[in-house]
């Protein structure tokens, strides 16, 4: 079995063409047969070659007639709805190919811009980027900031509800363990909860100059008064 890519054009060499015809005819009939068996459906093939006035058929002349009869019985519209010839079939495949190409390009662009973003986080300059790249990069940064923000919020919520639950349990304990009537301590006064909240406040404190994992990332910038609104046309 050759794995050379065959050019999709009429084979001018007579013997090569005849050999190819023989092989591919056999393969085609095999494929029809497999399709019919695997999916339990009716099918037929009629093949005319320049080498024979009689057609080659699958499954058999009678079988073909049976399938054709079934075919002809269907309403005209049904018959032609999914009927293609080479031209229309090729157009279909081209359209599908273009669709897949567009999607793949879009995915690749996203991956590419992500790479650029991570590289520029570690100090690589932006001089090689044109305005379109910068726009896309800005959009990507915004998306990431959104996700980061969401994640921070959800972690905070989680911890708060955990803290509240722990505090409630602690308060519950206090009530239970006291022989005398003890004062119910509201959740805030529970030391654990307060300690927990303080930790988050410290973390979220933006005044802390946080280094960037060893790299000197913090570049001194003047203030900027931009309202960044990236046009939505990130992906053409």
């Amino acid at each position, binding site marked *: 079995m050759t794995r050379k890519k*065959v050019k*999709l*054009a*009429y*084979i001018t060499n007579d013997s090569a*063409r005849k050999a190819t*015809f023989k092989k591919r*005819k056999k*393969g*085609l009939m095999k*494929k029809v047969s497999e399709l*019919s*068996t*695997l999916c339990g*459906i009716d*099918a037929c093939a*009629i093949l*005319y*070659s320049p080498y024979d*006035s009689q057609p080659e058929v699958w499954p058999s002349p009678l079988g073909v007639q049976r399938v*054709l009869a*079934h075919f002809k019985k269907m309403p005209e519209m049904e018959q032609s*709805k*999914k*009927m*293609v*010839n*080479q031209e229309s079939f*090729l*157009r279909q*495949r*081209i359209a599908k*190919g*273009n669709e897949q*190409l567009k999607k793949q390009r879009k*995915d690749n662009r996203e*991956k590419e811009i992500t790479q650029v973003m*991570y590289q*520029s*986080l570690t100090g690589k300059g*932006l001089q090689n980027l044109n*305005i379109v790249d*910068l726009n896309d990069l800005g959009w990507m*940064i*915004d998306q990431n900031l959104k*996700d980061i923000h969401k994640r*921070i919020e959800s*972690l905070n919520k989680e911890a708060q509800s955990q803290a509240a639950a722990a505090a409630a349990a602690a308060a519950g304990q206090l009530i239970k363990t006291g022989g005398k009537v003890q004062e119910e301590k509201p959740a805030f006064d529970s030391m654990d909860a307060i300690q927990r909240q303080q930790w988050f406040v410290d*973390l979220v404190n*933006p005044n802390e100059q*946080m280094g960037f*994992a060893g790299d000197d990332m913090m*570049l001194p*910038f003047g203030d*900027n008064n*931009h*309202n*960044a*609104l990236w*046009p939505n046309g990130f992906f053409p």
Partner: protein
Amino acid sequence: MVKKPSKGRQKIEISKIPKKNHLQVTFSKRRSGLFKKASELCTLCGANVAIIVFSPAGKVFSFGHPDVESIVDRFFTCNPMPEPNGLHLIEAHRNASVRELNLQLTQVLNQLEAEKKRGEILSQMRRAGQTQCWWEAPINELSMPELEQLKVSMEELKKVVLRQGDKLLMEAANPSPFYMINGSSAMVDPIEIERKPSEIHGNVHNFGYGQGFF
């Protein structure tokens, strides 16, 4: 995200597929492949063919070259001679069209393959980056202090990007005379870059400067 390996390139038993979903998918793929093979046979060897298949749902798909109807008619009339001479012009025109389409298709498929390869490389780079730098990990895997750090860095980067964007827009709007002196002002193409100052930032005050100095 791990994809399930497909059953392609494995030997399968040729008997009716038991699972309905699997059967439907197989029909879809194999029907398409069958028509493709038929189309190739016609192009490569100048054959005429008609293939008719019924889907599991009862719909009928057919492929024919030059067209299904003429092949079916020819079969029924047991006519050894193909269509009369007059139609040869139409045939020739159709063949030229098919040749053109085949070229187009080959081109698209090549481009698609190239982009897929590129995608693979980019994915590899991302994976490599993730093992080396903690900040490249998916956001959901980062700890709170890491998230905070990353957020600050991202915000700083955003400022840099905006500044650079401003710079480029200003250069486009006000080409410096220095470029002109060199004779090669190829870098500055003010009209080409679409200016949307109000969308990118609200603080455009450079256009009053006039030519040259900024």
